[in-house]
């Protein structure tokens, strides 16, 4: 019974192996993945990724894009994610965990381990006594430069 339905699918399917492997020109940006029977469109840049956004994301992520390729990659990631709009989620609650029906386990508030500062400090490149050493935070010098520039305009 089930077999008949699947075999019909078999016959309807176009011949050939994995329809995905298409030759990619190394100069070209990456192709977008096609999802099942959706037509494998290469998404166009929607213009969503502005220079401002790039700077903002780099600041938040503390990871730089490093070039046009990464920006194109983000544009494709966004276009891909946009397909979610096609799903009707009216009245559906977001799911945070598959174990949402269970109580989170909390153990009793007793100290059972610790006192391993020395061990933990060993993994850091820069320590002074029991401190991890960080360079100075951005704040003042860069902010001052920014404000000075803006006032000058």
């Amino acid at each position, binding site marked *: 019974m089930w077999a008949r339905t699947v075999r019909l699918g078999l016959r309807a399917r176009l011949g050939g192996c994995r329809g995905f492997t298409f030759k990619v020109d190394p100069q070209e940006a990456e192709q977008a993945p096609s999802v*099942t029977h959706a037509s494998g469109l290469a998404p166009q840049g929607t213009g969503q990724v502005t220079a401002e956004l790039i700077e903002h994301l780099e600041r*938040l992520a*503390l990871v*730089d894009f490093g070039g046009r390729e990464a920006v194109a990659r983000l544009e494709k990631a966004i276009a891909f994610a946009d397909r979610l709009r096609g799903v009707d989620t009216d009245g559906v609650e977001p*799911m945070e965990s*598959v174990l949402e029906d269970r109580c989170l386990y*909390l153990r009793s508030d007793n100290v059972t381990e610790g006192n391993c500062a020395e061990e933990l400090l060993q993994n850091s490149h820069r320590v002074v006594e029991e401190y991890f050493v960080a360079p100075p935070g951005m704040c003042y010098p860069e902010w001052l430069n920014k404000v000075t520039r803006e006032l000058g305009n």
Partner: protein
Amino acid sequence: TIGTTLKPVSAGLKQGQITPTELCQKCLSMIKKTKFLNAYITVTEEEALKQAEESEKRYAKGQPLGDLDGIPVAIKDNFSTSAIETTCGSNMLKGYVPPYNATVVQKLFDQGALLMGKTNLDEFAMGSGSTDGVFGPVKNPWSYSKQYREKRKQKPHGENEDSDWLITGGSSGGSAAAVSAFTCFAALGSDTGGSTRNPAAQCGLVGVKPSYGLVSRHGLIPLVNSMDVPGILTRCVDDAAVVLGVLAGHDPKDSTTIQDPVKPFLLPSLTDVSKLCIGIPKEYLVPELSSEVQSLWTKAADLFESRGAKVIEVSLPHTSYSIVCYHVLCTSEVASNMARFDGLEYGHRCDIDVSTEAMYAATRREGFNDVVRGRILSGNFFLLKENYETYFIKAQKVRRLIANDFVNVFNSGVDVLLTPTTLSEAVPYLEFIKEDNRTRSAQDDIFTQAVNMAGLPAISVPMALSNQGLPIGLQFIGRAFCDQQLLTVAKWFEKQVQFPVIQLQGLMDDCSAIFENEKLASVSLKH
């Protein structure tokens, strides 16, 4: 001679036919012979021999700790191992030595298992090929098998003509290669979107993804907290059950492990499948599925039906959105999880000292590869205030719909779902790298990642060789926390299909090491 699965080897150890040290030496020797596979990042020879010595003492007293005492295992390099470098295949953690063992690692050690080493992976487990780690790609042992070479009319000797080697799949490819090449009896992988099942299928192994919440994630360097699970790779289902039995159970250090008492994992030998209902999700029949895998899938369903099981077509309507949903949730959680790598407390640190932000940025640029950085940036985009509702929350809602699809199917009387694991058999590396990591992951995870979103147990079982002589596996998906039932069905299937043992004659001095079936399995690993 010794066996290649746990039962005969365990018996051999108990009866003194072989000692843990001898077994350890054989596996270490195999590791050296198969070094070109690049399965291991760190080989822990000294530690393993020390553990073997301890194990030997216990066997001499007739007091082994259990079925895993003296058994060589390998562990994916994203599990923390005390005093042993743990890199996640990344520059960010090169040289990082954890001060503690992951819970699952500790459990294996507590049972007397011997650690052969830490295995290679895609950087931070992001990828489906085990090609994107800083230590280089992992090669599929089947590239050097008699079965594959004969089909290609090449001599089955070592690594001549090596440019056409095949990938293992990923991201737990190192663990898969380690088990497939007989360097250990079991290996730990991780599974977030299919990273254990995918390489299992491509390397002819059993790959288990336990129910989310069954096995502790404490010490597994996290990718996606709501989907990650430790995975198990073995050469047969019974062995996977033994390992799962050791690993499963509540861990006070991981609040996402359930507190229900865990049933023992001894698998009955199912003879009657007439009470079983197997579901075939119709949406998994995609145009990209290779005709060979499709035909094996049909054959498998026919097999169940011919033995009296009820086999029905079912629907998981949101399947086509699964990959997109996974993409948003995964990158978002990754963006959050990767934030801890700032160079201050552990891991790589750049030389720049001008400001904290500059130091963080340079450290992360130097420490992470393009794939990781790309996902962090995408994730941060989806988590922006103005995007949070449209992307992240939306994806969480779609996740519920996907999870509900499975619930509905299992509520309708289906016991186990049967699907392909991968679109095709393992492909050559040169072909694989023509597409970028994200594209490949989206393609290759298609049958596996919905399972992670629903937190269900799943297992890939090798079924048969393709026309090219390469392994093809099929996936069984079970109800939440019905891992034992799932493995029982998988074991029945394994027995029916009698998947052939890999013939790596080029790597063995003794050319008469032809494997028969699992029962008689005896391999001569003479030096």
